[in-house]
């Protein structure tokens, strides 16, 4: 029997990096203790990113150019899912053009969702491959330490039995209703208890219990651990735990607090993805996820790991960054300030759900058409071929275009139209191999953007219907250099 494990890895951290000093500068008048958090930067979703869009990007990175029909399940872990009742993992699956014979599942309600979801996926994957993604887009109340400590990001792992890059040696969970923080129904933000109590009574007691139980089950010793992942933003906690557990000091993985922030329920998976991008064959990796108990997971990397690195990964994402120093923009993107964007934004944004369903392949999956008569690629797919020299009726086959690179043919930066991040960049993109579309650009680097710039498509929020709590998704073009993905 082949071993279950992680067969591929992908990651996505948003390009925007909010400078913590600017958050502190705006808030320290009310809480001078925040000055202690002023170093470094935190990742920050663009206005059109959420846990679903980040999960899609991480999953695309994970699946690469490989075949997708082997995936039999999509599980999504997050405490910041855009829909409370519409399966978010289902949106991810649709955006990835996965087959309909697929199980989907959202895992939520705890910072442990990432690791609990991963254990669950690994158990399920003994039978058939699971695409497991974890993503978090955390909103925090103005002037809280959480606003400074948190980050946004996602990671995805393909788990199965097909030549893993890291085999799963075992897992253990302890469940204890330890409420270090919570977010109640109908409440926007987290409510936290004192950090020293969380450290001493929470991390330092509960994590060792889970890790100890795990090592009682596996054929490894804690001293064998080469990488120890515990996504604790509290200072010194990972090192203290390593010492308590007998794990060697150099095994403690950096929690990326300086350059990314704590991506919540996704963070253990983000850190695991990063570790797998860097690990060599034969390494032992221990992952602990904390939250109303603790999950502990143990992996061992195989010799496949060096040949199956992701195209971008967490490290590739971290390398592509745009400094953001405007705290008001950060608040606005996170909707923690009620900002006026003009009367043009007042138009009704209702989504006709029947229209969305009918066009879901086009809108969510970015499926165009390819004429079987003349070979012309076109978007949207249409009854009559768009090629002026063809015009054939009903000759088009579905043609997936999300991974087709393109180039900017025309564009503008529109300061008049409604946008949550004016000016709105949009223009004509021509896809390599045919097809074109007037489309939004996002993550624009104003200095280098011009006609001829290469772009790739990313799944983003096109519009928020705040009145009805809905959001429309569609694909936007991102400069290849800003996407972090391989050209």
């Amino acid at each position: 029997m082949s071993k279950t494990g992680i067969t591929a890895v992908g990651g996505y951290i948003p390009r925007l990096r909010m400078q913590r000093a600017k958050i502190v500068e705006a808030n320290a008048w009310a809480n001078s203790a925040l000055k202690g958090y002023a170093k470094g930067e935190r990742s920050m979703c663009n206005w059109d990113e959420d846990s679903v869009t980040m999960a899609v990007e991480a999953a695309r990175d994970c699946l690469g150019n490989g075949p997708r029909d082997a995936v039999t399940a999509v599980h999504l872990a997050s405490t910041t899912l855009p829909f409370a009742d519409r399966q978010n993992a289902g949106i991810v699956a649709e955006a990835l053009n996965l087959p309909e014979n697929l199980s989907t599942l959202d895992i939520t309600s705890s910072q442990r969702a990432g690791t609990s979801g991963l254990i669950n996926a690994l158990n399920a994957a003994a039978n058939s491959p699971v695409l497991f993604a974890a993503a978090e887009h955390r909103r925090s109340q103005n002037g809280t330490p959480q606003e400074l400590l948190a980050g946004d990001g996602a990671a995805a792992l393909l788990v199965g039995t097909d030549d893993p890059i890291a085999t799963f040696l075992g897992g253990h969970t302890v469940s204890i209703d330890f409420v270090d923080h919570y977010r109640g129904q109908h409440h926007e933000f987290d409510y936290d208890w004192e950090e020293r109590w969380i450290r001493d009574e929470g991390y330092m007691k509960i994590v060792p219990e889970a890790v100890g139980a795990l090592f009682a089950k596996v054929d490894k010793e804690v001293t064998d651990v080469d990488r120890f992942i515990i996504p604790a933003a509290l200072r010194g906690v990972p090192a203290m735990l390593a010492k308590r557990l007998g794990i060697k000091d150099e095994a403690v993985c950096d929690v990326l607090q300086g350059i990314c922030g704590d991506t919540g329920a996704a963070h253990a998976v983000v850190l695991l993805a990063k570790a797998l991008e860097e690990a060599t064959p034969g390494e032992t990796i221990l992952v602990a996820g904390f939250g109303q108990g603790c999950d502990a997971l143990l992996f061992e990397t195989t010799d496949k790991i060096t040949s199956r690195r992701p195209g971008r990964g967490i490290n590739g994402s971290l390398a592509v960054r745009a400094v953001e120093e405007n705290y008001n923009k950060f608040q606005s993107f996170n909707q923690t300030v009620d900002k006026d964007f003009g009367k043009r934004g007042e138009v009704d944004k209702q989504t006709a759900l029947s229209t969305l369903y009918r066009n879901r392949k086009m809108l969510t999956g970015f499926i165009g058409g390819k004429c079987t008569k003349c070979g012309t690629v076109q978007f949207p797919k249409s009854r009559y071929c768009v090629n002026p020299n063809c015009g054939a009726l009903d000759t088009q086959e579905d043609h997936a275009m999300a991974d087709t690179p393109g180039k900017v043919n025309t564009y503008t930066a529109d300061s008049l139209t409604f946008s949550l991040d004016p000016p709105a960049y949009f223009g004509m993109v021509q896809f390599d191999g045919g097809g074109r579309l007037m489309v939004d650009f996002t993550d624009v680097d104003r200095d280098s953007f011009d006609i001829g710039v290469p772009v790739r498509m990313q799944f983003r929020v096109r519009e928020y219907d705040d009145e009805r709590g809905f959001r429309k998704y569609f694909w936007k073009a991102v400069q290849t250099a800003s996407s972090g993905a391989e050209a």
Partner: protein
Amino acid sequence: MASGIRDKVAILGMGCSKFGERWDAEPFDLMVEAFAECIEDAGIEKDEIQAAWLSTAIDSVNVGPSGVPLAVALRLPFIPVTRVENFCASGTEAFRGAVYAVASGACDIALALGCEKLKDTGYGGLPQRTRGVTNSMYWPNLSAPGVFAQLAAGYRGAYGVDRDELKRAMAQVSVKSHANGAKNPKAHLQRPVTMDKVLGAPIVAEPIGLFDCCGVSDGAAAAIVCTPELAKSLGKQDLVSVKALQLSVSNGSEAGHNSWDGSHIKTTRIAAKKAYEEAGIRNPREEISMTEVHDCFSITELITMEDLGLSQEGAAVKDVLDGVFDADGEVPCQIDGGLKCFGHPIGASGLRMLYEMYTQLLGRADERQLADPRIGLTHNLGGFPHMNVSSVSIVGRYEGA
């Protein structure tokens, strides 16, 4: 075999309201203002009008759908009234309906009236419009300047024109139109502007600045048409007749097929070619006395000079900067001030352009009267460069029996 519209229909009378921010006026007031001038000019009674076409483009403000608003405003005697909408070509479409009705013999006298009340939105620029349920799910939030700015990028890409050179030529388009509009009491904007002022204006949608944009106004314009024979029998001596009416509508190939490079308007080229054939024009730059083209934005007018064959491809920048289209140039363009100075109450604009051609051809243009104009061309372009409606109309002195 179709014989075309040339000289089959004459303009019996025209009228045009004052354009501008008409805070004082309901749409009905604007309609009546244009119509009162028009019917007086025509010299007929209201009950002699047998059919009417109303053009309005934007439902969200203005008068709402159907032909009813025109019938009510003018208290028309229960005749057929048809409302038309075809983007910025709406006014020309109303005219086309009336002209075709007369040419077919279905009626003797027909009215075309276009009206738009834009200034009740609470903000500057065109009102937001619905775009269709499916389109709104994936189209960018494109504003009018935003989509027409694409032309500048496309033109730059096709001809390798320097950004600053193109921006200067665009500015000259506006400087010229403002100079003309300053002589027109019906224009919304009646002040000349300098090149520096245009170049220094805030950017609306790169590279389009504030002065590259036409105004946003309220207004109405109207035409009453009949056959030349009937016009003569009603005592008209100098007649202006319709020489060509052509329309071309994108079929989505520019938006969806890579054969279009984004540097020109495909529909305008098609409509112009057909219009010249219909009007019997072989060399437009020599034979056309003057034009009123769709200068929603300066870049649009600039590339339209090429699309109409008034400039060679790639030569419009030089021709514009050389003053070819100035009031004293070879082919004056926007002699009334254009959309630039009139603003663009969408349903009215096509008829407002024809009003200037008619006025010039009859020698009634006072301070801005051109010397001996014989053929005038009007052009509308609505929608987006990559998906649009374009109309080309040609009117001229009637030289029939």
